[in-house]
């Protein structure tokens, strides 16, 4: 059905051995409030990890630690260690722009640049110097759109503004934009909560196809979605990582009562 499937599952050159990213005893404070209370977790390339938990549980805060998006919040302070391929992402020598290219992010609300569809994708590769010629850039744009399953829908309208697309297409455009700089990790913060069920299904299908090529972490409030698309699930509550395990086990036989109460709708 999808011409990108083969590509998406093609193994990367980098070895899959060991975690892609590791978090160890990560605490996050907003001012004096401790939003995350010492969380450790590994992210690997072969699995999609879902973060679930009630609002304010720290899951988005934790997600944003992986590419230092919390740096943009003045009062936020992060302690503990997060590494990308063994490299400390909070080291003073870390180039944050480079980090965010390697660890891309997709947000809740599709946020295409107010530019053409083409430029939305081409912008990143251009500033990161990934293309030496226009034709090479064209190739990157087409490739990213294909992998995001959007190419056939937009190939004849690349000059139209990205904002003219439907919500679901805009979100896939944002995923294509993240893919264009060839990241290693893609963080998704409730990527489907503004989409209708059909657009949601397309994004879920896309996530499934991207699995194995990129490490993917998704924050979702939709439990069914976590159950459908992830292989591992982490349940957060009040800043703690309560339970982390195989998605199948979490949703059929969770070990922790708090996890069970949350996923069965008994929370609070």
């Amino acid at each position, binding site marked *: 059905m999808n011409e990108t499937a083969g590509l998406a599952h093609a193994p990367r050159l980098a070895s899959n051995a060991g975690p892609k990213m590791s978090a160890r005893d990560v605490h996050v404070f907003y001012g004096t409030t401790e939003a995350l209370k010492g969380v450790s977790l590994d992210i690997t390339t072969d699995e999609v990890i879902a973060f679930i938990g009630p609002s304010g549980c720290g899951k988005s805060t934790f997600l944003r630690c992986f590419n230092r998006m919390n740096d943009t919040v003045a009062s936020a302070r992060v302690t503990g260690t997060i590494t990308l391929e063994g490299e400390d992402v909070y080291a003073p020598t870390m180039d944050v722009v480079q980090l965010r290219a390697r660890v891309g992010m997709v947000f809740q609300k599709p946020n295409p640049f107010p530019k053409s569809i083409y430029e939305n994708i081409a912008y990143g590769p251009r500033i990161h110097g990934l293309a030496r010629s226009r034709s090479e850039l064209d190739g990157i744009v087409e490739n990213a759109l294909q992998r995001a399953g959007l190419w056939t829908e937009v190939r004849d309208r690349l000059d139209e503004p990205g904002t003219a697309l439907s919500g679901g297409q805009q979100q896939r455009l944002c995923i294509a934009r993240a893919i264009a700089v060839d990241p290693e990790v893609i963080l998704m913060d409730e990527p489907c909560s503004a989409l209708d069920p059909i657009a949601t299904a397309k994004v879920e299908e896309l996530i499934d196809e991207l699995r194995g090529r990129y490490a993917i972490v998704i924050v979702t409030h939709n*439990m*069914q979605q976590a*159950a459908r698309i992830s292989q591992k699930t982490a349940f957060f509550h009040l800043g703690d990582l309560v339970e982390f395990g195989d998605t199948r086990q979490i*949703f*059929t*036989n*969770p070990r922790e009562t708090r*996890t*069970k*109460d949350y*996923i*069965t*709708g*008994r*929370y*609070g």
Partner: protein
Amino acid sequence: MPSEPPTPHTVKSFDEEIDELRTLVSQMGGLAEVQIASAIDALIRRDGELGLKVAEADAELDRLEGEAEAMAVSIIARRAPMADDLRELVAALKISAIIERIGDYAKNIGKRASSMAASAPVQPVAIIPEMGRLVASMLKDALDAYVERDARLAIDVMMRDTQVDDLYNSLFRSLLTYMMENPHHITSSAHLLFIAKNLERIGDHATNIAEMVHFQVTGQHLVERPKADQTPLYTDPAPKP
């Protein structure tokens, strides 16, 4: 030891629907217990009419099973249950199907009791009430375990199935001898053999209910229980020289 009742759901109607389904399944179980007792009663008292009544009453169990299935499917479709809720629904579906099957065995016993009432009594029938009491108590405890969410009682039920198998083995042997002694007994003895087999199967099904209860409560499947029904291995006695 019954487990704590689960914390209520935020959406109360979900709890109400689950309670309604559990009530329906328990009601089916109660009806099946009565059916087994009446069928054996019909056999022992040689009451052909009662036997036929039991057979007729089975339709109610079939109807309730359809109702339970429709209710469970509707809850699954609308609530997308997870974890223990999901296990609860799967268990209700399976247990109601098992009870329906138990009802079929009781119905068959009723019919055979009615036929046997018309012929001369057979002596090995004396072992049937004990078998009946055993499987009825297994069924009752399996259903109590279901109602109370009691995994330990469920295990206890599973352990008792070998007693039923032992009784069945012994009845099987005595019936063979009985038939060999007097060929006139063969028709009634064959009926009795099927009745005993039906009771043995009810014991197996009560065990299956207990297994489902254990899974529902703990999320764990138990490993295969021992099987003590030896009769499939029996052969003809060696011909006399």
